[in-house]
Structures are given as C-alpha cells and as structure tokens.
C-alpha cells in the first residue's frame, strides 16, 4: 500500500478513531442475544480443546452446559472471561463488546461474573469484606482508596447476606467457612457484583441435597433479569433447573435443546449419557483428557 492509501485509510470518513469513539458501556442486546461465540478454536499442544465452537445465548436465559471431561466447558469459560487467549474465532458480549481484546478486569467490569469450580474466596478477610470487594463500584485505584460504604451499599450487602444464608457469619473469616458455605459466599459475591451474565462452574459440587435444592431455586430466580450459564455434572440438578441444555463434545457443540430432547438425541446417548446406557466405556474415554 502506498503512503497515500495509508493516509486515506487513516482518515476514512466513515470511521472514528478508536480513542475518539465514545466509550460504550451499555451492552447492546437489541437482538435479544447477550453472548455470541463464533468459530472458536483453541488447542493446547495439539489437543483441540475448542473446535469450531458456536454458541449463542439469549438475554435472560438460564443455559446449562454439559459434557464429558475434556469437552471444553471450563476452557470456554476461560476464553469468555479473558483468562485464556483463543487461537481464532470471535466472542461478543451484546452486539458491541468484543471480549477477545479485553483483559479479565475489563470483562468483569462489563458485567460478566464468574464462579469457579473450586470455591475461591478471600480467606483472610471477613465474609462482609468479601462481599464489599465484589460490589459493583468504580474499581480504579484512586476511587477505591477514597471509597466509603454508602448506606445503599450496606443494605445491598445485608440483602445478599440474607439470600446466601450467611447473615450470622458476616464478621467471620471466609477461610473458616465450610465448603458449602464458601460455595454460597462465592455465589453471593456474584450477586453483589450485579452482573448481566453469570458463568457458574459446578455450583453444587460438595453441597448437601438441601443446599443443592436451595441453589437450584436461587439460580432459577436469577434468570430473567440476568443471564446465567451453568456448567454442571449432576444431571439431577441440571434437570431441575434447565430449560435449554447445550451438550459439548470434544470442543464443539453436539446438541442443543430441552432436557428431554437431549436425552432422546442419538449422538448424545452415544457419547455422553451413554455412560448410563452403554456402560463404563464413555466414562473411561473421558477420563484421560483434561477438563
């Protein structure tokens, strides 16, 4: 390209330089879609963790992702939240936010919250502090230094504490909580952040039947105003909450539909639910690969 062309390209009249464009904080969901994942590819040392994966999530939906170990569920979440860089493909949050050129903090500030498989709370700080830190606030350095809790924020924390059933433990160190309580606290941290999209990785691992039930209730109540994506192995739990289920297999979408449709889908029976139908074969196949 000649210098003239370069200059023309630089001064194109149908485009605004990125640094002059107004910051778009609103998430554009005019098409009722909140997450667009298209042609996503990612390989670790030759192993295709994600293989031409396409996934669309409606605004306000509660979606369950299932799949054997190594199907790419957690990797997909890693890519969406900016933890892992993908090889090719696009991920858009709403129509206007390209998530692939943002880092974890930016993505979180856009309103995407994540709960990890292994509960990670700030163990050396109190339950209250954990929630305070997760609040949806200005998270730059100086505003954080001079920030003070407003009454509204305290009310919000109290509300969340009540929802997650840790109101009596507010001044307890988070590290002293039981495993199930940590799970709840982490969900509470998500709630406090008031996100548009929640990515929840195995929320009921290590929970009692009762706690599982409460979690199911909470997640269903969240859907509607928020969008929730749940990764879970517990099929009983998935059946109790899911309206739409997406089955991942070897890094791409195998099937999508209601639980009943999924269960009668031939491919799915073969590769995943086959554990029950075909026996131990499917389970062993999955074991060698990484989650």
């Amino acid at each position, binding site marked *: 390209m000649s210098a003239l062309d370069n200059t023309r390209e630089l001064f194109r009249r149908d485009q605004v330089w990125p640094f002059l464009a107004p910051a778009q904080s609103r998430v554009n969901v005019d098409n009722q879609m909140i997450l667009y994942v298209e042609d996503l590819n990612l390989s670790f040392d030759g192993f295709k963790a994600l293989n031409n994966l396409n996934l669309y999530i409606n605004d306000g939906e509660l979606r369950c992702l299932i799949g054997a170990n190594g199907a790419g569920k957690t990797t997909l979440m890693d890519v969406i939240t900016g933890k892992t860089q993908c090889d090719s493909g696009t991920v858009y949050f709403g129509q206007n936010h390209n998530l692939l050129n943002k880092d974890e*903090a930016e993505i979180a500030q856009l309103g995407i919250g994540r709960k990890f498989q292994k509960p*990670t709370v700030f163990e050396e700080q109190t339950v209250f502090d954990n929630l305070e830190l997760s609040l949806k606030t200005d998270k730059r350095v100086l505003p954080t230094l001079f920030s003070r809790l407003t009454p509204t924020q305290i009310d919000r924390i109290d509300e969340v504490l009540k929802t997650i059933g840790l109101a009596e433990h507010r001044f307890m160190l988070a590290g002293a909580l039981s495993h199930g309580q940590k799970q709840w606290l982490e969900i509470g*941290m998500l709630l406090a952040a008031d996100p548009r999209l929640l990515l929840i990785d195995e929320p009921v691992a290590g929970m009692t039947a009762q706690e599982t039930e409460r979690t199911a209730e909470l997640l269903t109540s969240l859907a509607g105003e928020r969008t929730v994506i749940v990764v879970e192995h517990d099929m009983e739990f998935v059946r109790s909450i899911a309206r739409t289920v997406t089955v991942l297999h070897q890094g791409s979408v195998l099937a999508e539909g209601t639980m009943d449709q999924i269960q009668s889908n031939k491919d799915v029976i073969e590769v995943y639910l086959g554990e029950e139908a075909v026996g131990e074969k499917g389970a062993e196949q999955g074991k060698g690969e990484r989650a």
Partner: protein
Amino acid sequence: MSRLTAWFSEGRSSGKHTLPFVVILLGVTLLASAANLFLPADSALYVSTYTITLLGKYLCYAMLALAVDIIWGYCGILSLGHGAFFALGGYAMGMYLMRQIGDRGVYGDPLLPDFMVFLDWKELPWFWLGMDQFWFAMLMAVAVPGLLAFVFGWLAFRSRVTGVYLSIMTQALTYALLLAFFRNEMGFGGNNGLTDFKEILGFSLQSDSTRISLFIITALLLSVIFVISQRILSSRFGKVVLTIRDAESRSRFIGYRTDRYKVWLFVYSAVIAGIAGALYVPQVGIINPGEFSPVNSIEMVIWVAVGGRGTLIGAVIGALLVNYAKTRFTAIMPDAWLFALGAMFVLVTLYLPKGLMGVYGQLKAKYRPTNAKESQV
C-alpha cells in the same frame, strides 16, 4: 480538606495499635531528647548524643522496614531490592549536603565537591544542578525512588511477573545500581560515596541540637507515615491489596486491575524507603554504594520476618530489635553477626512464621479464651 479529615477519622477504629504506638514512639523520643539536653553528663539517666544518633538510625531502619512490610506483608511481593530505593533517597540528601560544604572542602573549590576536583572535573555534572536547594533535593529524594519503582513496577507487574522471578529481578536491580554507583565516572563519588558533610540548612551536623532535631523529625515522620499507611491499608484499597496477596486472579475476575494496584503500592513503598534514606544520611554522615548491596536488602526482609509481616507494628519492632541486637553483637563478636542473622531467619521461619507479633497474638489468645474463640471464628 474536610473530606480528608473524614477519611482519616474513619480509619481510626481499624488500627487499634496506632494510637499507643504513636504515643509511645513520640514519648520515648521526647524523653530521650530531654535526658540528653537537660541532664548532666554524669547522671544515671543521661542519654549520650551517640545513643541519640543511634536511635535516630534505628528509626530510619524502622521506616524502611515499614516500606518492605507494606509491599511484602500486605501485597505478597517479596522485594529483595528495597535497599536501592533507600540508597537513592540517601544519595539525594547526600548531594545536597555535599553542595552545602561549599569552599570548606579539602580542595576549597566553591562549586565542585572534593571528589570531582580530585578527578580533575571542570564543571558540575547536570544532575548535580539544583541540588544545593534543600526543597529540590528533598523532592528528588522521593521522586527518584518513586519514578524508578514506577517504571520497574509498571514493566514487571504488567507482564505479570511474580514470585521468585520478581524477587530475583529486584535483587538484580539493586546489584546493578551498586555496580553503577561504584564507578567514578557516574559522578556520585564512586567507591567512597559522599561524606565529610558540614551542615544542613545552616545547622552544624556535629552539634547536639541538630542531632536531636534530626532524631525528633525522624520519629515524627515515622509516626505520620505509620498513620497514613495504616489508613491506606484499612481502606478498600488495602482490602484489594490483601486479595492480591491471597488470590490475585480471583481479584482480577471481580474487576480490579491488580497490576495498577501493585504498581502504586510499590511506588508508595519506594517513596517511604527514599524518605528513610534521606533521613538516614545526615545522621550517619556518609552514603556510599555499599547501601545498594543485596545483603542489605535481604537484611531488611529479615527485620520484617522477625517482627511479623503483615502487621505494620511488627515491622517496626523487628527493625528495632534486630538492629539493637546487631549493635550489641557486632561489638562483642563482629565476625559472627551474619551467622546470627542467618540463624535468626531460619529459626523465625521454622518456629515463628508470623514473627514476634504472631507470638503476641498466640499469647493473647491463650490467656483470654473468650477472645480467642472470636478471633479464630
């Protein structure tokens, strides 16, 4: 202004050791100064000027330990190069004191410090300009360490260098500066450094009153820095810093740009180290490249480890105790000091992972079982 006072008053509840600490520190400082000034030299309670200077030196070390603790104990960044910031602050003060000598040096040159005359330099290097102004030199004492910390931190934390690699890099930083300042061509007095100071702001450095003033100023600044640090660390900023120490990636997923927090905390810590260095030099009367030596920086980490990292007061106590031990020990068996220091570090790491403050906490928990339950819960 009112916002600022409100900000400080809010933090008062969180640091319950702050007030006693400040009262004790300033009380001891004033008593020691009064004992030096008003008691006859043969009185049993007389405090010699030598002791006053020694105490002033300890307080500078305490300030330095505070700086190391803020970055290591609270943010988990083990800096083995804080001596660099300390020495840079010290050099800024040293340059000012050198220029104050004027024509009273050995060679009597009105402009050039002795070592430059000795090297046959004809004019003052550019970086010595303006250093005859006290305010400018003091600005440099905080700006140069701060800037170095900013550049270093920005590069290191943005590329997510952590753990041992970062420690080694800080160590390399201070070692590189050590080698650079050893060179005569650098224009900082080479091997000998800067010394033979005469006066500061017109007051003779040899007089008792100047020494006592320096001691009191050091104690005051240590108190102020202690209070400000306590407040910063108990703010939400401080809570974020703790999350960086305990679970940095989680903190990022909540939406905090942890690299920026680390950079600014590192700069703050370096500035404190610079101030400590600037106060140190007029009291000991010399600054040379030895202050950059990696061993010094490691020693600082040991002070904090002994006192108890993660508590500001622990850092101060550790610095005072270890340095007092050093003074006594080097007087009795100079060669054995480094062994004693190493042994202390090993013992503390093995048996007192939380340092002396941890022991204090355990004792408190033991003798007040009701409280113990609360604090453990």
